[in-house]
């Protein structure tokens, strides 16, 4: 286990360096600079002022020097300052927003697993039935539906027409006046739409995977053995088959992280949720170099860690993996 862990960790380093290079290249090789944006906003700006601004942000140095500097600071978790009017450290701005995005994504993941696993198992057990076909169609619709569109429709219907659910932000204006329980309820109510829409969109992958995995398992000899020794079907399915079918699903967890983080840009801007996605979108609009690089790096590193976590839990659950 230790050598497996060490191997995995050693592989993280080149991947991480690669991530930073891609981030850096994307931002600096693309035409358009943050100073250009400010020049657009203020047409009277002089050439000297732009040069001073570039020097101020370190944009006048050669690319390699900029990268090395950025990387050095990164080692101290310093992503530089936001190239916007508030000039606050990027790390600080991200730290404020990250818990919101992670919280929402974890909530969506939990909901997704709670729904997808029973859906998939039942589909496999009743393969070809009306239930199976209905579930297949429904999860495919979820997979194909534009999330932002579904969000709009739900906001209009549940939020505006019916008035059941709040449609923007994380908390009501009267939040501070509420009791602790009231506060939790308030935030939970605000999260219903974004979390369930995100979960609906990602249901397909997991439930189809679970179904396929389950169908594969029930064909195995040990299931035949379990049945042959007279165990009730319930025990065979839920104890012997499902446990084993759940194993490969762990990898799906790691794979679904980038999609969730990417999707948070859309959900957070539609629902006005102050998370990393919204921050990133604003940074994009302002061409805030440091902010974009910081968020992009954090997004990729979160994925990297998610994958590592999935790998490790998989190898803990299934010792055969470690040997390979």
């Amino acid at each position: 286990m230790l050598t497996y862990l060490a191997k995995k960790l050693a592989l993280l380093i080149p991947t991480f360096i690669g991530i930073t290079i891609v981030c850096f290249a994307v931002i600096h090789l693309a035409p358009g600079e943050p100073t250009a944006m400010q020049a657009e906003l203020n047409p009277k700006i002089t050439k000297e002022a732009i040069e001073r601004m570039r020097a101020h942000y370190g944009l006048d140095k050669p690319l390699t020097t900029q990268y090395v500097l950025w990387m050095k600071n990164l080692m101290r978790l310093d992503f530089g300052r936001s190239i916007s009017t508030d000039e606050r450290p990027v790390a600080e701005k991200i730290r404020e927003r990250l818990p919101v995005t992670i919280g929402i994504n974890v909530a969506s993941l939990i909901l997704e697993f709670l729904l997808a696993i029973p859906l998939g198992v039942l589909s496999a057990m009743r393969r070809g039935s009306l239930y199976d076909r209905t579930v297949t169609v429904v999860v495919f619709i979820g997979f194909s539906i534009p999330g932002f569109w579904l969000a709009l429709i739900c906001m209009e219907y549940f939020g505006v027409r019916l008035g059941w659910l709040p449609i923007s932000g994380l908390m009501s204006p009267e939040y501070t006046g509420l009791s602790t329980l009231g506060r939790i309820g308030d935030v939970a109510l605000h999260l219903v739409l974004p979390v369930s829409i995100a979960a609906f969109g990602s249901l397909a992958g997991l439930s189809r995977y679970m179904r396929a995995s389950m169908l594969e398992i029930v064909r195995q000899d040990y299931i035949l053995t379990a049945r042959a020794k007279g165990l009730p079907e319930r025990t065979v399915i839920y104890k012997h088959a499902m446990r084993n079918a759940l194993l490969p699903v762990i990898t799906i967890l790691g794979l679904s992280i980038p999609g969730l983080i990417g999707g948070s840009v859309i959900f957070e801007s539609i629902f006005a949720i102050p998370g990393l996605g919204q921050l990133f979108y604003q940074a994009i609009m302002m061409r805030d170099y440091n902010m974009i690089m910081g968020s992009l790096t954090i997004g990729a590193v979160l994925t990297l860690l998610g994958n590592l976590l999935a790998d490790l839990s998989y190898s803990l659950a299934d010792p055969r993996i470690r040997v390979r």
Partner: protein
Amino acid sequence: MEFRKRFFSDRLAVVGLIVVLAFFIVSVSAPLIAPYEPAAIDVDKVLDPPSPAHPFGTDELGRDVLSRMLYGAGISLKVGFVAVGIATLIGIFLGAIAGYYGGWVDIIIMRLVDIMLCFPSFFLILAVIAFLEPSIYNIMIVIGLTSWMGVARLVRAEFLTLKERDFILAERAFGAGSLRIIFVHILPNALAPVLVSATLGIASAVLVESSLSFLGIGVQPPTPSWGIMLSEGKEVLGVAWWLSLFPGLAILLTVLGYNLLGEGIRDAIDPRLKG
């Protein structure tokens, strides 16, 4: 024959095929079948609800929603096809050389794949698009450049299993060159999974294009993209539901069609994978 029989016995796959063909026909014949010019402004008919004259209503400039949607079909498909074309070419190229040559080439390419897979692709696409002029061509290129990894992995895996097979060894013994072996003997065998992945890729490219256009950094108005129509409709959602409903349904149907078709082809190619 086997393939065709299996494919057509899968009802969902056939539905997918029909939807895909229908949208394809609509998109090429839009100029013929659209009742109005997509950009024709009619100030007397601003935000008219659906009626016989305008089956899907009109928008805030009095333009016919149905006509704009018919033209929008072409935009979505163009982005989908070109983006997936780019991704597939890159994926085949990198996957083939990684799988065929192995060793260092393979290690470097697969590391690159791992790195690219770490990025939330929507983040990456947004970051690049933000610095380029938002235009339909930039979107195609950027989606293509950020979605080749799956194809590369598939092609590499096929190459790894195929290159040691006897028929390839025989070719080599007869003196066939590497290029000939790659393109004439191995690649055709790897095309089936690539076709599946390309079909599914079109679905996700259409989704990404509509999301980008919706956020205002995709296809630019007045081009009638479905995503733009939705973003314009958002402003008047309370009073003009038809502006938000129909383009959204069109995206859903197109994406669903390609997804069902892709899954159907996959199941028909390899029935063992069918659940």
